[in-house]
């Protein structure tokens, strides 16, 4: 059972456009939704994260939109740059559901290419 679904698998946008990456989840106990990006040969790194107390989180050109009712969240990358080309992973975790450690459940990733 795939608990976090991510689409599209790959995405190509032109420099300056907004890239939109989508994720959905099934587990209602999830309460933390990070996005990681990974450049070839490097570690996945946290880009931005949201908790469902709000439905939007912005950090510069990166914005997460969160829809609790539909169990969906998306990453919008405004004014995309060639340097944004990477693989982006959404994830979810149930921080408040108990247990000692918060495991992340990942989507399959979106390979983003930004062309100039």
């Amino acid at each position, binding site marked *: 059972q*795939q608990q*976090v679904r*991510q689409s599209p698998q790959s995405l190509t946008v032109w420099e300056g456009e907004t890239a939109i990456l989508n994720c959905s989840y099934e587990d209602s106990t999830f309460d*933390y939704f*990070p996005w*990681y990006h990974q450049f070839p*040969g*490097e*570690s*996945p*790194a*946290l880009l931005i*994260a949201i908790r469902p107390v709000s439905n939007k989180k912005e950090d510069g050109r990166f914005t997460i939109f969160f829809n609790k009712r539909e169990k969906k969240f998306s990453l919008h990358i405004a004014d995309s740059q060639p340097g944004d080309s990477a693989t982006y*992973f959404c994830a979810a975790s149930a*921080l408040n559901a108990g*247990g*000692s*450690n*918060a*495991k*992340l*459940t*990942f*989507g*399959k*990733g979106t390979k983003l290419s930004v062309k100039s």
Partner: protein
Amino acid sequence: GPKVLQIPSHQIIDMGQMVTLNCDPVSNHLYFYWYKQILGQQMEFLVNFYNGKVMEKSKLFKDQFSVERPDGSYFTLKIQPTALEDSAVYFCASSFDRNAEQFFGPGTRLTVL
């Protein structure tokens, strides 16, 4: 920023052999994790570790798997014996506490022949 190191970056072994994957977590972090990623698939949680103990493990964490962090050195994942389906990239992560950001290493690509 804080870095998690993993050694080796690539390991090729014959089926049935033992392998140990090493992780050097961020120095003041207390929580440690292993994730497995098969080619083309998502990263999947294997196990987490705190205060010298496994706190939670997934069904992917088979009996042939074990983890330890002796005397604050490397956090290790040992597979004994290995099987063909163990071929994957294994990512180590660490965090300061359970609610904090998890920092990932670059992964160890394990190939079992």
